[in-house]
């Protein structure tokens, strides 16, 4: 019975992730692609060796971009839905909609914003190709650390809640998270591979658009998935479509 609920939420999470991916794709195409093109223009002028084009630019910026963003949306939608299955009823007095939005907000911060502030997104031509291994390792390490610390902070908050009350327990948990993340920022190596002469305004616009893509993806996911989860778990009495879903949900 419960397994059917988990399956229902997982499917809805992946669909909500796909829909949020479409929204993020629109932002990525209209806000991000102009910066990517300008950065590639800089690269073409300054590069020492010219690579042969495997996939044309027009495909990379449309079908390629869509593949990446949509698969990313579905994958994180599925993971977030599974996390939400666990969080439902376990993180305080929140209904499905609020749980979903709270979880996606935390996921945006833990999965993206925290690693981004240390190792921000880079446009083409920023980053030495010889250090790709090290930069990839550091980025995923930062992401893993951030997610694990966010989970630890949640557990800490839940433990402190009976003693301090929900408000102060949350404040202490967030402060502890920020403190340890600050230490990680201080001790992990700096990556600064912006080539001389690369326009600062272009770098800023690219990074802002990368942030906007994620904000739209996670915000859209939280709202859409919350709505679908609410309808699955608390169907309105009288609605014929949801009346059929009751046996599966309970």
């Amino acid at each position, binding site marked *: 019975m*419960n397994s059917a609920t988990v399956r229902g939420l997982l499917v809805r999470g992946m669909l909500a992730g796909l829909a949020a991916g479409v929204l993020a794709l629109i932002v990525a195409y209209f806000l991000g692609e102009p910066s990517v093109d300008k950065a590639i223009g800089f690269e073409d002028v300054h590069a020492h060796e010219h690579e042969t084009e495997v996939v044309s630019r027009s495909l990379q910026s449309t079908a*390629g*971009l869509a593949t990446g*963003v949509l*698969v990313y949306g579905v994958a994180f939608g599925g993971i977030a839905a599974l996390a939400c299955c666990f969080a439902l009823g376990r993180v305080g007095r929140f*209904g499905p909609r609020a749980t979903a939005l709270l979880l996606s907000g935390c996921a945006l911060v833990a999965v993206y914003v925290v690693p981004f502030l240390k190792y921000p997104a880079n446009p083409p031509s920023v980053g030495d190709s010889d250090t*790709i291994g090290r930069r990839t390792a550091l*980025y995923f390490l930062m992401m893993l650390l951030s997610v694990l610390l966010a989970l630890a902070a949640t557990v800490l908050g839940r433990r402190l809640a009976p003693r301090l009350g929900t408000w102060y327990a949350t404040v202490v948990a967030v402060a502890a998270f920020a403190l340890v993340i600050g230490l990680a920022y201080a001790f992990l190596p700096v990556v600064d591979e912006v080539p001389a002469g690369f326009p600062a305004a272009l770098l800023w616009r690219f990074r802002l658009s990368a942030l906007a*893509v994620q904000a739209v993806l996670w915000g859209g996911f939280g709202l859409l998935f919350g709505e679908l989860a609410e309808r699955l778990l608390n169907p309105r009495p009288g609605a014929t479509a949801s009346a059929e879903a009751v046996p599966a949900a309970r």
Partner: protein
Amino acid sequence: MAQHVARPTATTPVVPATLPLRAIAPWAVFFGILMLVLLYFVGAEQGATSVFSGTDVHEWVHDARHLLGFPCH
């Protein structure tokens, strides 16, 4: 909707029953790993590490990789 406005005390959210770990675990293990594999192919394949030789996967998701914040090249 009108009923909710009339009785604001009745709008406290229904806190959902918790789903037992036993019900979540099989889905989480199988689909969790599947989703991570998908993320790997979007975010890192043919960058720092390669499952398939060549640069086709890398080049195809090139723009997405940059705009999603992954180190690309």
